[in-house]
């Protein structure tokens, strides 16, 4: 947060209005001329199954005439909507390489990371970073095109202008996972079973000359517009009327466990799914602050009931155990206890 009380994401949203996107588009074409088409596919697009990466793939194909390979690392607990959308992308004319990994291992890790970090998808974060790069190395496809630079778009420490454009593959572990997957070989999980989560050797990455860029550096990035394109061009479905904890049903709708993940985020930081989405809507001019405030007050921190039985079953937890875990992650500066209930110490105004 700056001294003026304005966060970097809002400043970036302001700065975005003055960027010459045509010039950035020309830069992108130059970059494609340099790096695309050097393997059996022009490039790799890391594909979560969601709208943003699907739209990037669609635009690369239809606006730039590329043949991308989509690398999808499967969600822990696919929703029906997510599965439908995933298949729609293949139907629309794309090759998808789908990694489905040992769910016995994944469940153990999800449980461990929910307990220790309040984040059941820490290993998923590792895998979605490792899988596309691993595939790039295996297939000899040096160009990888990521969606957005999270620190720039949504707030965080932006290391340099270059880091907004190029993904520094050596920094992934620190920024996105915080830990080396090799360290998780304990309690009946072997290092060999952790292979999908382990980042490829930098020597291999350099041998193939893997270069990774952010689509969002070269194109105006707007998740709401992406959702619209995904619906119109690819036939994406949404969660109706909305996801737990939010006012919309188009973002992070592929994994049943995401609702819990966002709820934990709110427990930890008093920053919930509705605040997260409302901020993006305001920043891109789709919503007034007054409306956003109402929606945040109404939905932020709502308990994720929608898929709770499946999620608890996956994690091997009872509901009261989940509450106990959340209590341990709650930031005592942000919450206080009144008559046996936890209440936020601050309210958005």
């Amino acid at each position, binding site marked *: 947060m700056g001294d003026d009380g304005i966060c970097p994401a809002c400043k970036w949203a302001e700065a975005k209005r003055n960027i010459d996107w045509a010039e950035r588009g020309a830069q992108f074409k130059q970059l494609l001329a340099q790096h695309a088409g050097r393997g059996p596919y022009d490039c790799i697009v890391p594909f979560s199954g969601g709208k943003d990466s699907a739209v990037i793939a669609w635009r690369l194909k239809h606006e730039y005439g590329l043949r991308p390979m989509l690398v999808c690392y499967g969600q822990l607990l696919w929703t029906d909507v997510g599965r439908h959308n995933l298949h729609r992308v293949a139907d629309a004319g794309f090759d998808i390489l789908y990694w489905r990994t040992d769910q016995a291992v994944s469940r153990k890790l999800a449980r*461990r990371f929910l*307990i*220790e*970090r309040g984040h059941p998808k820490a290993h998923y974060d590792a895998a979605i970073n490792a899988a596309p790069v691993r595939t790039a190395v295996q297939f000899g496809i040096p160009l990888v095109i990521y969606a957005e630079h999270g620190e720039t778009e949504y707030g965080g*420490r932006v290391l340099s202008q270059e880091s907004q454009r190029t993904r520094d593959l*050596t920094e992934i*572990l*620190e920024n996105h996972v*915080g*830990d*080396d997957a*090799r*360290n*998780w*070989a*304990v*309690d009946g999980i072997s290092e060999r079973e952790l292979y999908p989560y382990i980042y490829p050797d930098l020597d291999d990455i350099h041998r193939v000359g893997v270069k990774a860029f952010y689509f969002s550096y070269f194109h105006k990035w707007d998740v709401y517009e992406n959702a619209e394109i995904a619906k119109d061009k690819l036939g994406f479905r949404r969660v109706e009327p909305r996801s737990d904890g939010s006012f919309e049903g188009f973002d992070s709708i592929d994994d049943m466990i995401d609702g819990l993940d966002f709820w934990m985020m709110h427990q930890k930081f008093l920053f919930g799914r509705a605040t997260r989405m409302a901020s993006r809507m305001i920043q891109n001019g789709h919503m007034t602050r007054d409306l956003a405030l109402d929606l945040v007050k109404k939905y932020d921190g709502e308990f994720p009931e929608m898929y709770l039985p499946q999620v608890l079953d996956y994690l091997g937890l009872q509901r009261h155990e989940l509450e106990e875990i959340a209590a*341990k*992650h709650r*930031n005592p500066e942000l919450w206080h206890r009144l008559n046996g209930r936890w209440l936020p110490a601050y309210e958005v105004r």
Partner: protein
Amino acid sequence: MLKKRLIAALTFNDGVLFRTKLFQPDYRYTMNFVDLWSIDEIVALDVTRPGQGERKNFERAIETLTENCFVPITVGGGIRSLDDVRRLFDIGADKFAINTAALERPEIIDEFAMKLGSQAVVVSMDAYPSGHIFSDCGAHGTGRYVDEWAREVEKRGAGEILLTSMERDGALQGYDLALVKRVVEAVNIPVIALGGCGNWKHASDVLAICDGAATQNIYHFTEASIRGAKSYLKQAGVPIRVS
């Protein structure tokens, strides 16, 4: 043979546990999952910048630590006098790390060693790969080098050296082995390396050179993590306490 040590370096910003990166508080974490039993030692550092918090918040955090664990605790950050030490000693700290105060007035090491015994005096140094030492949380160059400074602090009675690679702080790419080696070869007292530990292989690499591998990554402190680390190190032939 003396056992090698796996050490948790806990950095507190105004009493709150943070992971730091390049000497800036970077990510907040809760103490609730820091396993205080199976780690060999704890180094607790106050990284609060002057005017950005209150010392008593750090002391309260140390108190919580000492009440709940029985492994040796080294406390550092902002220690400038024996008065500072006395308060921390009462709270239950075992060893005291001095850094900037020793660079400003090296005699303080002799005084500490005389009063507390060398075993309780740790000199902490923050350096770049060149060996240049920086003071005041990495803010000021001192014109001194790790090897000559290490020799001097040993002569003055320091019992141990905590060597932090500023460049590797918060990075997970491995310790600066050359820097560690340079200090180890200069002195006979134990050297603890900090900065850059990403995986247990890194720890075993550095423990082949020095006595203690300190890790500041909050995700390394959970009970399962330490269990994994200890079994890895044991298999790699590092003499380590496995509880």
